[in-house]
């Protein structure tokens, strides 16, 4: 059964005010198209989860969509600060923003516990750090099989996870290559999953290379075909990270006025990603197009 729909319909149906939302992707495969649609639909009071909130949550915070972040690294990678998030945290502009903070490992462990249906997950980080002091959800339990204690974190269960992928079939069986981040853990931890794909392929393409499948249609609610939907982040083999855009965001986001102008021009003023792609223009896409580096082929064997 096809679950193909548009980004507008998928967000309208599956993201509600007050929801806990995870748009994951570690540098790679960050679904900006979904974040922009959430801004356009003026969703409010969202709890946003990501290891690295990145530009996408900076934009959503500036647009007034979020009441809280659950995260582990709050920066513009390789550039500096997330100014909109900082304004909210340091000065309550446009509104105060609650923070629930972990290390990367702590966030990953929360997603694993959520995905696996466990009540908590043990890990050896946090010792000697002040983080457990400011986040009461980071706790210690005695080792039931020996001496000593271990830190634990509770499961994270987003209401919806939005997972960008290279390709999926129309039911939602999805394949990724390159950095995998926590796409799998976030998807299995969530109540609902929106898969956003650069390409929709025939089921036979998926079945020809099953080791590359990371998310099964079983847990997918909606499939959106959205080419270039991860810009200015990247999709391995499709387009490079737009480092110039990440650097430019630093200046755009320093003042609320310039940031709002940017949102007006690039989010509110556009109907969706297709217009964004066109507005950005062919030169940018040409600049971001990588050369080819094909994988070798493996023989799965025919058994009949």
């Amino acid at each position, binding site marked *: 059964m096809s679950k193909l729909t548009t980004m507008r319909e998928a967000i309208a149906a599956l993201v509600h005010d007050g929801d806990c939302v995870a748009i994951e992707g*570690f540098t790679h495969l960050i679904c900006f198209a979904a974040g922009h649609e959430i801004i356009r639909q003026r969703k409010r009071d969202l709890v946003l989860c990501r*290891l690295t909130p990145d530009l996408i949550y900076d934009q959503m915070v500036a647009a007034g969509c979020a009441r809280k972040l659950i995260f*582990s690294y*709050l920066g513009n990678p*390789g550039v500096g600060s997330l100014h909109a998030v900082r304004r909210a945290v340091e000065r309550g502009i446009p509104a105060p923003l609650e923070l629930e903070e972990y*290390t990367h*490992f702590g966030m990953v462990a929360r997603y694993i516990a959520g995905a696996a249906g466990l009540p908590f997950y043990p890990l050896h980080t946090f*010792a000697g750090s002040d*983080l457990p002091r400011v986040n009461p959800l980071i706790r210690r339990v005695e080792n039931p099989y020996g001496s000593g204690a271990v830190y634990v974190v509770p499961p994270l269960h987003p209401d919806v996870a939005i997972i960008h992928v290279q390709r999926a079939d129309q039911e939602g069986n999805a394949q990724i290559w390159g950095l*995998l981040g926590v796409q799998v853990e976030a998807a299995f931890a969530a109540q609902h999953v929106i898969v956003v794909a650069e390409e929709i392929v025939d089921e036979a393409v998926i079945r020809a290379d099953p080791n590359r499948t990371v998310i099964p249609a079983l847990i997918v609610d909606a499939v959106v075909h959205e080419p270039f939907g991860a810009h200015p982040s990247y999709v391995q083999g499709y387009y490079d990270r737009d480092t110039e855009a990440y650097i430019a965001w630093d200046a755009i986001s320093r003042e609320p006025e310039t940031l709002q102008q940017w949102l007006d021009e690039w989010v509110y003023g556009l109907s969706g990603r297709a217009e964004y792609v066109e507005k950005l223009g062919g030169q940018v896409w040409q600049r971001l197009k990588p050369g080819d580096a094909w994988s070798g082929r493996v023989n799965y064997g025919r058994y009949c």
Partner: protein
Amino acid sequence: MNDYTASEMMIVAAARMLADARVVFVGIGLPNIACNLAQRTVAPRLELIYESGVYGARPARLPLSIGDPCLVSGAVGVMPISQLLQYYLQRGLIDVGFLGAAQIDRYGNLNTTVIGDYQQPKVRLPGSGGACEIALMCRRVLIITRLSRRTFVEKLDFVTSPGFLEGGDARARLGRYGEGPAAVITDMGIFRFDRITREMFLASLYPGCTVERVQEQVSWPLRVADRLGTVAPPAEEELRILRQELDPAGRLRM
């Protein structure tokens, strides 16, 4: 070619410290450049591991972030972050971790979380990312940061990543973790840590730098090695690779 900047000296000094390392956990920024220089000079067998999920990277260009696509193409392995953090880092397979910091104290504890109070921060910094687990779980840690009284402080506003905590055996008492900070590489010289007290001391200076100038940038009364060393200036080959391959835009020359 004998003309070089403090940043270049710092990168070269950091790269040389990786001569005997097999696996290094690479951080964003200066460590990224230092590890890539080491792989091209003193440590050709060095495996670069990035928290984004890459083991054995051979980047064709200098990666602009730890999630750069050039880290994937040609790498030995790419895996979910959960696997990397659990089976490589927590399992204890990584020799060296590289960290920077907004604040560091005399025991090598690091703050990258807030300046001021946590609930009402003067400056909200990025937070841990993977730094806390890297500081705990790599066999040893190299810290790379520029000298400044704002960075080298008496007391951290927040401990993000533990070094030797209050010194002495405080870190050892945490249990099954790595050895902690081995050195602090700055823009004027290199600090190491006393084996008993675990306090950092100035171990060697770069050419042209003095103890007095270092002390001016450190908030506590500095301990200095009995036999203070001098670090050899960057060799021509080190500078060539740095400038032509790793920093063609000249950001380290500014």
